[in-house]
Structures are given as C-alpha cells and as structure tokens.
C-alpha cells in the first residue's frame, strides 16, 4: 500500500453509538472502469485504532473517475457481538480534480450512517 502521508484520499470511521473510532474495520477502494463498466479493486485495508486507514492510494494512481469505498460495517458490528441494519456501506463518489485532497469520513451506528466530503 502507498506511503501514508501522501494519500490524496483519506477516510475516518467513527462509531457514533459508542463514541469511539471504529477500529479494525475492513474496507476496500475501487475505481470504475468506465469502458467495461466494472469496478477494479485498488486497495484493501483495515482501520487503525483511530479509525483511519492511511495509504489508500498514491498520487500517481489517483486519476479522475468514479470511485467507491466499501466499508465492511456488518462484520465490524458482528465482531462486537451486535447486529446491524446495514450489511455494508458503499460510498460512490466522483473525482474530477485529483490535485485536491479528499476526506471521506463515515459516521455510523447500528441503525444509521452519514458521510460527507471533508478536509
């Protein structure tokens, strides 16, 4: 996986039900191949103790296009011995200017979630 500081795309997962970062959540980053209309997986990671996952993508690989972050939220809640309404969360977003930084947090509980474009 690419060196941490340089990922232009970052995420942060927060367990808003318990007021803690969501640690050890598996996630994957994909880019859409718009000719073939299929998703290519770019990286796999797991959130650290702070709910972050450095090194999602390198500057070189971060080209304009449609991306998807898939968070294995169902597995996360299961690991805490709980059920959840959502088996996973996928956030699909469009990058037109890859020179910028993009921060995509996920705030979630067992029965709700939200995301936004942050900094």
């Amino acid at each position, binding site marked *: 996986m690419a060196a941490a500081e340089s990922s232009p795309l970052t995420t942060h997962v927060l367990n808003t039900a318990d007021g803690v970062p969501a640690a050890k959540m598996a996630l994957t980053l994909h880019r859409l191949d718009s000719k073939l209309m*299929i998703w290519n997986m770019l990286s796999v990671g797991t959130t650290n103790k702070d709910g972050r996952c450095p090194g999602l993508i390198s500057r070189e690989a971060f080209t304009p296009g449609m991306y998807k972050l898939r968070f294995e939220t169902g597995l996360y809640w299961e690991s805490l011995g709980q059920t959840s*309404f*959502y*088996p996973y969360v*996928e956030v699909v*977003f469009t990058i037109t200017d890859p020179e910028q930084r993009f921060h995509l947090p996920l705030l979630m509980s067992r029965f*709700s979630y939200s995301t936004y*474009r942050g900094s």
Partner: protein
Amino acid sequence: MSAHRLQQLKGHILPEIKSTAMAGSLSPLTTHVLNTSMGVPGSNMALSLYRQDLPTNAWSLITTGTTNDDGRCPGLITKELFTSGVYKIRFESAQYWASIGQTSFYPYVEIVFTINDPGQKYHVPLLLSPFSYSTYRGS
C-alpha cells in the same frame, strides 16, 4: 458483457412486479428524501428498489419510482412481496442535483439493508446535500 449490464437487462426482461410504484398506502417499506442544503423535500428524484437473489447474489429490480412533491415514494413494495432478505434502494441523486443546476460529489446513493422481520415497518430516509448524505432506520 459485464455483470452489471447483464443485471440491467435482466431487470427489463423479468415479467415480475416491475415498473412503476405499486398501490400506495400499504408499503411496509417507505423512504423520504430531504434536500438538507435547501431545506426542502427532494422531489422528482428517481429511485429503484432491488432485492438480492440467493444464491447468485445478483440484484433483482422490484420497483422504480420518482419521489413526489413531499420527497416520498408511496407503493415501493407490497406486504406479499416483502420477504426477508437483503434489499437496496438506489437514489439517482446526481440527476436530481443536475436538474436543479448543481453538481454533486456522489453520482448516486445506494443504501443496502437487511430485513429479518418483514412483519415490521421500515422507513429508510435519505437526507442529502451536494457533498453529504445520511440515512437511518426510522419509523
């Protein structure tokens, strides 16, 4: 042919329950779209409801619809068809923002959820702005 394209074609061909939303008041599954950046309902937004088939894990299209003036879409599914399983609502959010002259960070929003007890009522709202969205299980 890609899996996605095949799924799209399958959705058109299946004689099922497809097309426009079904008779209103009785849907055990409802949604409500709110445009939080303007403080108005998200009206005239296209959406579709899918159920995941087992064992193929392919998505079957159940209904397509468009939100009304109040951001709601009655008649998503009937009690009879609402069986346990994994469902997905796909909201054509970028088309919605484009129709009011704005761009958006998200080309669409898909919310995937598990129904274990189809005897209950499920309300899956979507609150959105061009750069954020949230959802919850409501009543």
